[in-house]
């Protein structure tokens, strides 16, 4: 029998470390999947009565689908407004911090923005309710008078300013720090090598950013926006405080519309029986929306994998 000197007997310390690490990593991964699965199962079981109940007994009296559809649309609109505002501003601010601002300013500014992300949402809600909404009233009136022919600006404008657009703006302010912090972190990681390559070809600072920094950061920006979207979709307090709810209407400057998260938060305390099941079903729908959005984002990132710079 031959013995192979390379086959050592007994585990060495390094291998034990490897085993512990891979075990821990696997455990953490499984734990996340289990949690997700448990949440989904919980939501589904609790929501079940809604799907089996007589349509006339559901709020609105016309079945679950017509109950949920308007607030799904409201949720999506609020999140889209928030992202439409926060994404360009967030990326611009992140670029300013990472590539334009002098160091003395960049450090404190980045820190300030990280702090913004830590402010509880009820504070944003209170600010939106007390300060932003009244301040926007004249603007809404102007919009209704001059751009009223566009359905989303249809009048008469709300007198309190507690509208979908206000809620969207508050959400934008809330997700802005998330998008900014993550984007800045990614912009700073652009290899110096590639930035210098662009500069040495005669690129201006902006051309350097558009040839080297932004393409490199693209998957990271998408992830940052997705995290922001997650917060916007799931936000309850701020929307509940800022939006004066109502049925689905196209105008963003009248009271009306509702989001899933706020609908749940507002009605949960008094809900029981079928109403409770309804709200949980609404939660299940929100969960599914979030999953779909994230899968789409993954697919977009994966489509450009070959050119990601990770190889």
């Amino acid at each position, binding site marked *: 029998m031959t013995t192979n000197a390379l086959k050592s007997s007994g585990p060495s310390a390094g291998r034990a470390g490897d085993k512990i690490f891979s075990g821990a990593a696997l455990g953490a991964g499984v734990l996340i999947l289990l949690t997700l699965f448990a949440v989904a199962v919980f939501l589904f079981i609790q929501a079940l009565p809604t799907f089996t109940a007589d349509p006339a007994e559901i709020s609105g009296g016309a079945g679950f689908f017509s109950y949920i559809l308007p607030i799904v649309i409201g949720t999506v609109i609020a999140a889209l407004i928030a992202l439409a505002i926060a994404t360009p501003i967030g990326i611009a601010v992140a670029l300013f911090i990472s590539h334009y601002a002098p160091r003395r300013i960049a450090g404190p500014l980045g820190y300030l923005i990280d702090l913004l992300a830590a402010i509880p949402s009820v504070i944003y809600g209170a600010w939106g309710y007390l300060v932003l909404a009244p301040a926007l009233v004249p603007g809404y009136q102007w919009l209704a008078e001059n751009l009223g022919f566009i359905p989303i600006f249809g009048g008469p404008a709300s007198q309190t300013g507690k509208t979908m657009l206000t809620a969207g703006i508050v959400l934008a302010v809330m997700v802005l720090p998330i998008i900014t912090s993550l984007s800045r972190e990614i912009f700073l990681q652009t290899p110096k090598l590639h930035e210098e*390559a*662009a500069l040495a*070809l005669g*690129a201006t600072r902006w*051309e350097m950013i558009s040839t080297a920094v932004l393409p490199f950061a*693209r998957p990271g920006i998408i992830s940052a926006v997705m995290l922001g979207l997650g917060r916007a979709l799931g936000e309850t307090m701020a929307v509940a405080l800022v939006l004066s709810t109502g049925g689905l209407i196209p105008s963003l400057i009248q009271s009306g519309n509702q989001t899933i998260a706020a609908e749940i938060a507002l009605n949960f305390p008094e809900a029981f029986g079928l109403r409770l099941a309804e709200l949980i079903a609404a939660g299940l729908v929100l969960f599914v929306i979030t999953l779909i959005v994230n899968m789409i984002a993954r697919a977009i990132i994966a489509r450009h994998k*070959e050119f*990601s*710079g990770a*190889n």
Partner: protein
Amino acid sequence: MSKRIDVKDLNVYYSKFLAVEGVNINIAAKSVTAFIGPSGCGKSTFLRTLNRMHEVIPGGRVEGEVLLDGDNLYEPGVDPVNVRSQIGMVFQRPNPFPTMSIRDNVLAGVKLNGKKISRSDADALVEGSLRGANLWNEVKDRLDKPGSGLSGGQQQRLCIARTIAVKPDVILMDEPCSALDPISTLAIEDLINELKNDYTVVIVTHNMQQAARVSDKTAFFNIAGTGKPGKLIEYNETATIFSNPAEKATEDYVSGRFG
């Protein structure tokens, strides 16, 4: 086109640290000049002042003049962006843009400056530049694949193609072969010999044989000790530097008796 470079009393700083002191050198058009010297003597630092890449590093600044065919690069009002589009640079580590295809990498510099070029002009330029970098035959069937999928030597030649695509007057190379195998190295040395017909080439190298093979003139830089500035010790015809240098330090270095 190719232009000459004249450097007058150049001091190069990193913030307060004087890294290179008092360089005077005249580099002729359509020639290959090699910079040699021990590690840390400031070859890269000095090379990067020749296209104003040095000031990209925070705290980087210079005193003195660098003249490109008589025009001072550092005169107030000169845009470094302009300077760099006329004086190209190839780096030590190959750095094609990973998010771009081979074709787009070659065109990267051309598409800057807001220039639009027709599809057929672009095709011609891509082929011409890749041929100029001796890479065409190896990549002509996969121009749309990512540049980062090439071998190290191919990536470096892609970077050279990208640099010559913008038709600079001067090409600076900082140890372009240090990450490459001997065959890729020879390919690039051959290329440098051809580039000389159209461009002024300045190359930093640690490889004496390489300096001897490719360059017309050689500049030897040295440093008196850590924390001291690097200086240009001797600059002459390459044959003279290697066979009959005027300075003792040069002779010690080229004969391997250094340090």
